[in-house]
């Protein structure tokens, strides 16, 4: 039996992978995507749901700006809005040092095309009377927002499937190699061969890179998340703080989602659990900025597996060891907003060999002398 050789194989069914599958199909390429579980079950589905440009490392700004436009087009691209709402995002300062940081970042962000509006004490009280007294200032990015992470990657997967991509779920990839004529991807009965390979394997992206001699140091990042019962709607912005030790948003149905700190994860066993002590710290911090949560009941906590790079920015770009292989992983806790754009960028890198988006700062080459990640599976 000779299995077909796809134009592209994609390892990883998060938002970036599924969006890439769709974009590549739309360019007429044959695509197979292999995902070890269900599409969107890992970092893409368990994150906070913030869709934001504010607060990013400025090197990510062109990608985030490109992605922001795509969030508005979700209904056209995947058939549903995935509950994306441009509520705006406010980053809060809780003391003078944090206030200075807000102002510093606002100046830096403006140089990279992001307009932020920073206000102090009295204005904060007037604009957001529901914020706790500890808040001394806020920086607003008016067109940032939030969406439902459980919906996005699966929506892209369905759209990719409808466009003719072969999406293979519960197909864990155990190995891959370049044979000299094509890539072979080992996934048991779901194994595939392809002319090009995309490594969007999230936390496991470092291991995949290692199969091609360019392993990188990546560590698990398990964001500890908490959600309340439905409450009367009062938080009309998505909220973060300087330093990021708490973040919160309220969905239209009224549940308040907040998080902060790290849960527990055993990447080898594929098990992760939210931590009660960490959740309780997040509750304390959330109450400082949102005192009205005082009477709320918590109904759920969760975490998941994201991948974190030592410098907190992702690996994006062509492999330096193997032509035809492209990497995009290690989004270090802030990949959600970038997912839609990553689909287009990966399609450009695979099909055109280049992308108009500046991805040089994310090259895997910056880790060339670093020790590779320990085997996770």
């Amino acid at each position, binding site marked *: 039996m000779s299995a077909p050789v796809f134009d592209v194989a994609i390892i990883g069914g998060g938002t970036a992978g599924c969006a890439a599958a769709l974009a590549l199909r739309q360019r007429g390429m044959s695509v197979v995507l292999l995902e070890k579980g269900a599409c969107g079950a890992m970092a893409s589905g368990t994150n906070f749901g913030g869709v934001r440009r504010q607060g990013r490392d400025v090197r990510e700004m062109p990608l985030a700006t490109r992605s922001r436009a795509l969030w508005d087009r979700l209904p056209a691209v995947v058939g549903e809005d995935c509950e994306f709402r441009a509520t705006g995002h406010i980053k809060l300062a809780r003391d003078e040092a944090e206030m200075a940081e807000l102002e510093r970042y606002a100046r830096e962000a403006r140089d990279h095309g992001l307009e932020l509006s920073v206000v102090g004490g009295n204005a904060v009280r007037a604009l957001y009377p529901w914020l706790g007294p500890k808040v001394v200032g806020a920086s607003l990015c008016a067109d940032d927002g939030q969406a439902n992470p459980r919906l996005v990657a699966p929506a892209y997967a369905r759209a990719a499937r409808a466009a003719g991509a072969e999406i293979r779920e519960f197909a864990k990839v155990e190995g891959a190699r370049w044979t000299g004529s094509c890539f072979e991807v080992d996934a048991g009965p779901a194994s595939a061969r392809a002319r090009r390979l995309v490594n969007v394997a999230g936390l496991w992206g470092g291991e995949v890179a290692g199969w091609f001699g360019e392993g990188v140091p990546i560590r698990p990042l398990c964001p500890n998340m908490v959600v309340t*019962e*439905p409450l009367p709607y009062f938080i009309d912005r998505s909220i973060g703080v300087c330093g990021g030790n708490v973040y919160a948003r309220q969905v239209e*149905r*009224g549940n308040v989602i907040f998080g902060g700190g790290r849960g527990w994860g055993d990447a080898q066993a594929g098990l992760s659990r939210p931590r009660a002590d960490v959740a309780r710290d997040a509750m304390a911090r959330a109450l400082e900025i949102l005192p009205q949560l*005082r*009477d709320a*009941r918590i109904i759920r906590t969760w975490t998941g597996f994201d991948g974190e790079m030592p410098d907190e920015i992702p690996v994006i770009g062509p492999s330096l060891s193997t032509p035809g292989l492209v990497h995009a992983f290690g989004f270090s806790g802030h990949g959600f907003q970038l997912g839609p754009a990553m689909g287009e960028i990966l399609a450009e890198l695979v099909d055109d060999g280049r992308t108009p988006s500046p991805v040089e700062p994310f090259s895997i080459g910056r880790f060339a002398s670093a020790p590779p990640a320990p085997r996770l599976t």
Partner: protein
Amino acid sequence: MQFARVKPRASAEVAFTIDSRPARARVGDTLMTAMLLNAPALRRFEFGEGARAGFCLMGACQDCFVAFVDGSRVRACTTLVSEGMAVLTGASDG
């Protein structure tokens, strides 16, 4: 009122209010019992029409959460009624 007392209680009376209207129950009544001996329902459903009056009576279904005037909330079937409780059902009287 939804519930009917079939085994009279010998315990002391408890005075409380439902939507600012005086109501009476007995020591040993849960708040759910106390409310439903005096009113047809416990709360409004937040995602559609209609009221809710609890379901499982054992702290499992969470249908019976009611709000006090001060904003705090309790699960009525696992909370005993006490003197002076001021509970709101969200029912509109007119």
